[in-house]
């Protein structure tokens, strides 16, 4: 296990370099000039060129890329934002906690709704319960998310006045954004839970558990759900992973200072240090998170755990081939 984790940490290096290169290239070829945006219409061409020189924007691709790598990996400095002049690292450290909070709360909510719904649908396949929960799920994933968010605001802030319409100055501010994100996620989790439960429920060991005289509820939750967990965790993990990049829509609508809006502004203002630093940070975090997901897999499933063990494990081909 340790070896596996260490290996994955080593993998971070090429990934980080790859991501840096990738984002750098995209931004390099993206038309648009950050300096014009900084200085406005009244700046003369000379001023513009001077500023570009200062920022090193007139250098060639390779010089700029190498400079950036030096700055990031030798000085450990992501630079300052062109637009706000604030340190990118500080800004990220300020915003990322919000993003993480929103991501975790929404995913928790989505899981709490999605998993039971999926189990219900799977255990009552083709019954009205199945149909309603699946149609409901489909309905939810099919809704444009900003539309849904705006509807939530109209209802809960404007009409009922229960919750603030924006901002996160108190915990109540987290409710609407998290609900708006969680809904689609819950639907996705419910669908995944259903299909992986359906698969597991048909396995012989479930019949074995029933044949022991075990109660149906326990068969479903102790035996079936635990075995169906891997793809469900995968879905949940992917959802968190995607949200680590920020929940742009929810952040915009509910005025949350998260990574999504930060990156979005960076992109639209061609604030290269922000975009590059932000993506780098997010992707490192993403990789670490995916590593965590893999560790969770190993925790959930002893078969996966044993694959990571470096000791010589017995491998049998057995009858795997014929029993599919």
């Amino acid at each position, binding site marked *: 296990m340790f070896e596996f984790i260490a290996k994955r940490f080593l993998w971070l290096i090429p990934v980080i370099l790859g991501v840096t290169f990738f984002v750098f290239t995209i931004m390099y070829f993206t*038309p*648009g*000039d*950050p300096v*014009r*945006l*900084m*200085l*406005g*219409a*009244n*700046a*003369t*061409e000379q*001023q513009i060129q*001077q*500023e570009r020189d200062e920022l090193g924007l007139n250098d060639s691709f390779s010089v700029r890329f190498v400079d950036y790598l030096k700055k990031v990996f030798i000085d450990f400095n992501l630079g300052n*934002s062109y*637009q*706000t*002049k*604030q*340190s990118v690292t*500080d*800004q990220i*450290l*300020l*915003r990322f906690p919000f993003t993480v909070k929103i991501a975790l709360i929404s995913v928790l909510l989505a899981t709490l709704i999605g998993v039971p719904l999926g189990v219900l649908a799977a255990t009552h396949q083709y019954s009205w319960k199945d149909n309603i929960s699946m149609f409901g799920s489909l309905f939810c994933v099919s809704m444009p998310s900003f539309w849904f968010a*705006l509807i939530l*605001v*109209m209802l809960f*802030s*404007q009409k009922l*006045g229960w919750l*603030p*319409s*924006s*901002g*996160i*100055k*108190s915990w109540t501010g987290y409710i609407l954004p998290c609900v708006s994100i969680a809904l689609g996620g819950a639907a996705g989790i419910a669908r995944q839970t259903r299909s992986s439960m359906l698969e597991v429920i048909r396995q012989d060991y479930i019949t074995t558990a029933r044949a022991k005289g075990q109660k149906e509820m326990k068969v479903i939750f102790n035996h079936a759900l635990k075995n169906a967990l891997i793809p469900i965790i995968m879905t949940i993990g992917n959802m968190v992973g995607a949200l680590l990049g920020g929940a742009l829509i929810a952040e*915009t*609508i*509910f*005025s*949350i*200072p*998260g990574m999504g*809006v*930060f990156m979005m502004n960076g992109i*639209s*203002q*061609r604030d290269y240090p922000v975009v590059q630093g932000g993506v780098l940070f997010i992707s490192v975090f993403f990789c670490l998170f995916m590593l965590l997901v893999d560790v969770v897999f190993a925790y959930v499933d002893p078969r996966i755990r044993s694959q990571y063990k470096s000791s010589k494990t017995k491998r049998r081909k057995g009858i795997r081939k014929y029993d599919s």
Partner: protein
Amino acid sequence: GCSSKKNDAQTEGAVNENENAPEVRDKINIAVDSDVGNMNVFGSGNTYAYISNQIYEGLFALGYDKEVVPRLAESWEEIDSTHYIFKIRKGVKFHDGNDLTANDVLFSYKLMQEDANYNQYVINVDFEKTKVVDDYTFELYFKEQNAYTFTNLSNVNIVSEASWTASPDKMVTTPIGTGPYKLKDYLSGSYITLESFSEYWGGEPSIKEATFTVIAEPSQKTTALETGEVQLVMNVQISDIGYLMTNSDYNVTLDTGVQSLSFFLNMNENSVFSNKQVRQAFGYALDNDAINIVAYDGYGKAGTAPFSAAMKDYSEKMVGEIYTTTDVGKAKKMVDESGVDGGVVKIATNGTSAQIAAAEIIQNVLSELGFTAEINNYDSATIWNVGSDPTQWDVLLMVTASPSGYGVDSMKAFLGGLNWSGWKGESFDRFMQLCKETIGANSVDASNEKAVDVVKVIEEEMPIYSLVQLANSYAFDPSLNFRVWNASSLYLKDLKFE
């Protein structure tokens, strides 16, 4: 970063207070649409303007009616048009306790040169001669006579040399000025809280604490006003103005600002607009009122001259015939006479819905004139690159403004500096000459007089055309005595709940 997490008491308090009105309310929540970004003296953007106006002060400011209001200068004396002596107010303290001296003033003026954006305001200052006479006397020299110089100087805010050098991040997140409010709390991207400065030389303001909440989604600002989360909304979304106006729970103020929606015409060979008659015909065919109604729900003002009527140098004499007439028939005839027969016209916009709506009407008008127009939308970062490449557009929409508040100043920047239209030749030389004369005139009145000539040249050649003068809109709690401070800004010290 300077941040703190929650201070719920304040938002929720505001919600409650809204209902049990009688108590004295000394806190305000203001909705703004973007983060302030850099808070030192070099900041930019709307939100910055709202905030820096409370934190920093210059020697003098331009007030509600663009009148000059003394601030850190108690008085001044004009020796001649390039030489002034300022008396600095005594006993003024910075937020960090430092005392204001003339040295700080000189320091701040020199500081301005460091910034690519702000150095234009002190470009005319002759720093060789400018000097500190004593702690409270500051002698300022200009390089040459310039009608706009004094206005420009109102943009120079004063910081303490000691504080500036001590600041770890050049005050980007820790602004220190002499203004009536100081920074209390700032969460990047979310809110900025200012609190009144108890040692302010002009006495303490009635509102003790002001929170600027960033709400980027326009309709959410209105919602926040409705739910009582904010009491003042800067820049109400146009589509909500009508709704708020008909509702007696809110007051709405519309203020024609210096901005206008304009377009450049491509005067280079490759474009149909290289022909002067076609340009003029186009001007005659356009119905600015219709564009105002469609793009701005009628809350702007139809353009009457190349720049906004709110500019300081604007006068009725500038109103041009191409602006006031809408005569498609005449326009068609002119196009026929010009010998230009149809062609493809590319309209470039920055993709905002107002510009697109305007572009769509322009497209219609052009097709009536026999041209095929296509609309290309670019994002705001690329529109600049597109603008400087005249092969990519024929009509380029743009919001124009002038930092100094003078129309000719802005025309000089757009047509003389940028000159995306590619205006050349004798008329262009005349335009430049006239600009120079206007700006260098020995009195404001003389300057304004000359400005009319500048405008006439532009109206004749039509490299640029102003469609709509944009209005800034503000919605607020009726108990607030809100007024728009110069240049679409805000002066919190004068505000109170009644």
